[in-house]
């Protein structure tokens, strides 16, 4: 069975330095040591390290030996293959996990500004093949902790790394583990929260679909650190591919003794079960998630007690997000010191964002903490399509805030986003351009959180509904004096009084747009004007003189609001028009105008 792959560079420079001859010597030495059948030897094209030639790469582990001569080879082979100790003196480069991506895809502009730690293997390895994961140092971190580290060491290392929960709140992971580890209980649980509920966010899904083993490995390490014997991955049923790959990965890991009894020959036992969620947004909240796993309705409960003290089935429970867990193996392998060198003072490592909205490169990006919004939107995201003007960026999913241009140079981390009036959340990032109405956007997000409220606590259940009603009437042109103040009053009360994070953050889109775009609200209410022309109550369609009377608009109108008076152009009956915009879209002659309303209250008097 092949255990190692030795790749010899066969590029012109290395060839000149007799790399071909090395192959024979390697084979001979392998025969001598009786390990020939364990090793496969490949010749590769130029690796680009000509100055260090001849170059030899041994996988797994991506150890590069350079400047080697014929007499060095037997020593390297014996040490690396037989004694399983890479020979340090000839090593020119070792794997840097996040570099792996660039070895495959090169330094494309979209990727160049990114730093891939969580997504390091996504797109590189075959997620359904455990050997692929093993070849990129997979489960090496697990082997390391089981042989060299005590649970306390792991927790100390994670604390040192400064890793914080990627689910949104940013609670220090090491501290969370320490709390659970210090609980005296025979039964403990570790839960991976893969209930990704933010519309438009798909980082957890991509991580699992692209690299399920890294999440599993992170969980096993976490379980070992806190003393859990059972792990549960709570994932929404809407992610069938991710579920399939997780199931396969868990089975493969069991067969390789990474899961189950006596893991890797130690006394540590741990296994993972997958639980499917029905996709309620609130089940991402940890206590609601616990209730859902227990078989009850997914409703949050007051904390304390925190799950690390009394969680699933009242036992100490650690709940970590997918992205958090995917960071664990890297921290163990490359060290907390290295990890904590990335990011800002209080937020370490990287963060994956899902770019969406009015931006050229929509998709997933992983950047170090401390990258500015401008870098993400313009350098990686490629700016805004059609040369439109940037208006705002909404971070943190439906309960995040909308940040205007002045915040573009904010260095992203948990604190700075909070200070700016938004949240990190799970990492959604929606770019809004000048064509969007901020009142309508706020209403859109609130509609989501309002529908997804679990209905338990009054402020969230009733309050968001009332806010939504007020926003709706503003966008319909029925806003009243004092509505903004009511929104602020309700919003602040809901933020401070709600039971769980859903309610505490639900008013964010409204409060932040009121703070940053108050003039738009005033326009809507006082002048009945929507400058973006999005609010249906605040514009009319009218047919102008360009109409040739073709009648297409009349045909498409779903409400029979268009008619033709004999021998003249078509007309729109305003009372019947539902502002769907179909006629506007189908007219080929630019004969339909969208007329924004504006009432000048001063003039009228």
């Amino acid at each position: 069975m092949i255990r190692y792959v030795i790749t010899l560079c066969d590029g012109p420079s290395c060839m000149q330095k007799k790399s071909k001859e090395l192959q024979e010597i390697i084979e001979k030495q392998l025969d001598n040591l009786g390990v020939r059948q364990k090793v496969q030897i490949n010749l590769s094209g130029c690796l680009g390290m000509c100055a260090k030639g001849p170059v030899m790469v041994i996988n797994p582990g991506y150890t590069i030996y350079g400047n080697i001569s014929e007499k060095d080879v037997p020593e390297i082979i014996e040490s690396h293959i037989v004694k399983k100790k890479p020979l340090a003196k000839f090593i020119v480069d070792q794997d840097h996990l996040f570099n792996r991506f660039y070895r495959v895809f090169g330094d494309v502009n979209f990727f160049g500004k990114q730093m891939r730690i969580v997504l390091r293997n996504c797109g590189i390895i075959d997620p359904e093949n455990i050997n692929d994961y093993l070849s990129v140092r997979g489960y090496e971190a697990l082997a390391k902790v089981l042989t060299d580290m005590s649970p306390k060491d792991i927790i100390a290392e994670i604390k040192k790394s400064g890793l914080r929960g990627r689910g949104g709140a940013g609670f220090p992971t090491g501290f969370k583990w320490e709390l659970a580890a210090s609980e005296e209980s025979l039964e403990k649980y570790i839960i991976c929260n893969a209930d990704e509920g933010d519309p438009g966010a798909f980082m957890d899904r991509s991580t699992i679909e692209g690299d399920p083993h890294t999440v599993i490995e992170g969980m096993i390490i976490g379980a070992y650190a806190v003393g859990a014997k059972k792990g549960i991955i709570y994932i929404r049923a809407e992610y069938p591919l991710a579920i399939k790959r997780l199931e396969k990965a868990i089975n493969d890991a069991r067969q390789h003794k990474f899961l189950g009894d006596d893991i890797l020959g130690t006394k540590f036992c741990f296994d993972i079960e997958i639980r499917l969620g029905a996709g309620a947004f609130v089940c991402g909240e940890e206590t609601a998630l616990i209730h859902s796993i227990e078989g009850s309705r997914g409703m949050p409960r007051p904390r304390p007690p925190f799950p690390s003290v009394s969680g699933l089935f009242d036992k100490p429970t650690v709940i970590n997000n997918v992205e958090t867990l995917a960071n664990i193996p890297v921290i163990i392998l490359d060290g907390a010191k290295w990890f904590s060198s990335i990011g800002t003072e209080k937020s370490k490592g990287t963060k994956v964002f899902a770019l969406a909205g009015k931006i050229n490169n929509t998709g997933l990006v992983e950047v170090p903490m401390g990258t500015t919004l401008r870098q993400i939107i313009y350098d990686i995201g490629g700016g805004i399509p059609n040369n439109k003007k940037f208006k705002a960026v909404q971070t943190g999913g439906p309960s995040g805030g909308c940040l205007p241009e002045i915040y573009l140079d904010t260095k992203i981390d948990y604190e700075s986003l909070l200070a700016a009036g938004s949240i990190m959340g799970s990492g959604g990032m929606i770019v809004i351009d000048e064509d969007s109405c901020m009142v309508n956007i706020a209403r859109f997000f609130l509609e989501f959180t309002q529908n997804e409220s679990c209905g338990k606590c009054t402020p969230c259940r009733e309050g968001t509904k009332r806010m939504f009603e007020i926003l709706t009437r503003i966008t319909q042109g029925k806003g009243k004096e004092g509505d903004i103040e009511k929104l602020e009053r309700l919003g602040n009360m809901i933020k401070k009084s709600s039971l769980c994070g859903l309610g505490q953050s639900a008013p964010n889109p409204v409060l932040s747009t009121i703070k940053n775009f108050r003039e738009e609200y005033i326009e809507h209410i006082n002048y009945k004007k929507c400058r973006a022309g999005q609010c249906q109550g605040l514009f009319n369609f009218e047919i102008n003189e360009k109409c040739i009377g073709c009648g297409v608009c009349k045909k498409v109108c779903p409400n029979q609001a268009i008619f033709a008076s004999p021998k003249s152009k078509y007309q729109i009956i305003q009372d019947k028009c539902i502002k769907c915009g179909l006629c506007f879209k189908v007219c080929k002659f630019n004969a339909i105008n969208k007329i924004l309303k504006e009432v000048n209250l001063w003039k009228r008097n």
Partner: protein
Amino acid sequence: MEKKLVLVHIDDRPYQVEAGQTIMQAADKLGYHIPRLCYHPKISIEGACRVCIVEVEGMKNFVASCAFPIADGMKIRTHTKELRTARRDIVELILDNHPEDCHTCERDGICELQRLAYAMGLRHRHFEGEKKDYEKDLSSTAVIRDPNKCILCGRCVRICSEVQKVNALGHAYRGFKTVVMPAYDMPFKDSVCTTCGQCINVCPTAAFVEKNYTQELFEKLQDKKFVKIAQIAPSVRAAIGEAFGFPPGRAMHLETVACLKRLGFDYVFDTQLTADLTIMEEASEFLERLGGKGKLPMITSCSSAWMKYMEQFCPDLIENISTCKSPMSMMGALLKSYFAQKIKKNPTDILSVAVMCCTAKKYEAARPELEIDSLRAVDIVVTTREIAWMIKSAGIDFVNIKGEQFDEPLGISSGAGAIFGATGGVMEAAIRTAYELYTGETLMDIELNDLRGLSGIKEGKINIDGKEIRVAVAHGLGNASELLSIIRKDPDRFHFIEIMGCPGGCIGGGGQPYAGSNSIPLDEECLRKRAQALYDIDRGKTIRRSHENPDVQKIYKEFLGRPLGALSHKYLHTHYKPKEPRGIIPEEIKAR
């Protein structure tokens, strides 16, 4: 063990309080009654209404004082301007989604939400909008559910699952559309609801109320065709005064009799008499079973909610259940047979009305098994609350009225019959009689303190002629199910078991007066006082054993013959059969 003390500041005043309690518990003892709504001391902490929020220095958000543990050095503020506004707005949000029909509401004047809104200073509305609009569920014979009045505090859900372990109710749907309903939104009558009425007791509004029969009763009382007869349950007398402003713990049966006479009843009888009769039958049945004829342990069958619970959830124990009817149904049966013959009336011309502390009795009265010659034994059941309202509505002065005695021949009762209303009372009464029936000697020490009080499951032992009889008492269906799991494991552990469906027994029944403005529903102190009122009646009687009741003796002599005789079986005993409403998980699935 001495509790650890911590220093906290509440509204800038320093206090030493015990650690390990919530902010609300600590504040309660210091004279701060933080406004609250979903909180109830008997059930788990929900933290849902957010009315009890307080400010804790250093915390970003308000915290719910009902749930948050107090800690050393905590600086708490209970009524800052911002807090007051937030609380007011929260209560307004509840009201904004609540019907504005206080004047026509059953709970007008005794509604927790109304009181709270007043206390929060809600004098105008800011946020009015859409209100929910659902159908009332009128299907049940006993309990009506009105989702429109529900404010989703979840007390009913919690009491049903935690105290009663029936789980008839749950939340459905999300957000603004959330509703409390039985599984699959099925009609209440088809659900697992045992009609115990504890949801009514704890509901702060009128989202749950008993099915009201007062109008029907008012009409029938005017009907000259009927001989109108009322019976009054033991625990009605212990609580009815509360509905008229008397403190709990006053036995007011004489006043009640007088009022019922003025309402138009021709006869007012005492259910305590048939409680004595029940004891005669039940004690005899027990001794028969003890002698090898029938299954042990024998379990009492007086509580209608418990009967439905048993038929649904533990049909395996049907043979253990005493076949005796409840005192109410025995009285009904006697009225339409023995008493009808006595006054030479056709049973169809008798209007048999039961004034009960219980909502489930409405369900029991409608059970077809209990009919006497195809006639309902009890035509109308009204609760303590309903009768109190009728008295008020008819303009009868309960407070100042001169009491009157129960009518003959069904009016004399022993002290044993009186204590039926409190948990443990049936057992105590049964032992008093069984002892004498078995040994022929009179039991002298008749107050069995082991069986009194409010602990969930009580056990006792009594030596009857050298034989040790082990008995157990459970009140509240949750405690009952716990006791049942004990006897399933160890069937020989007890000989005789009393189970009452409601916490505290009948005195805590689902039809008792609502808690007043300074009390909480099912307050233990209140239950204790009501029970004490019954024990005082017992102590004040010269006849304290059921078999000594001269009226009971007369009934056997004139009509029934002997306990467990043929006529007794016809009129005083019944049978049960398993029920499987939707929502009960069949055994074979449970086993999987």
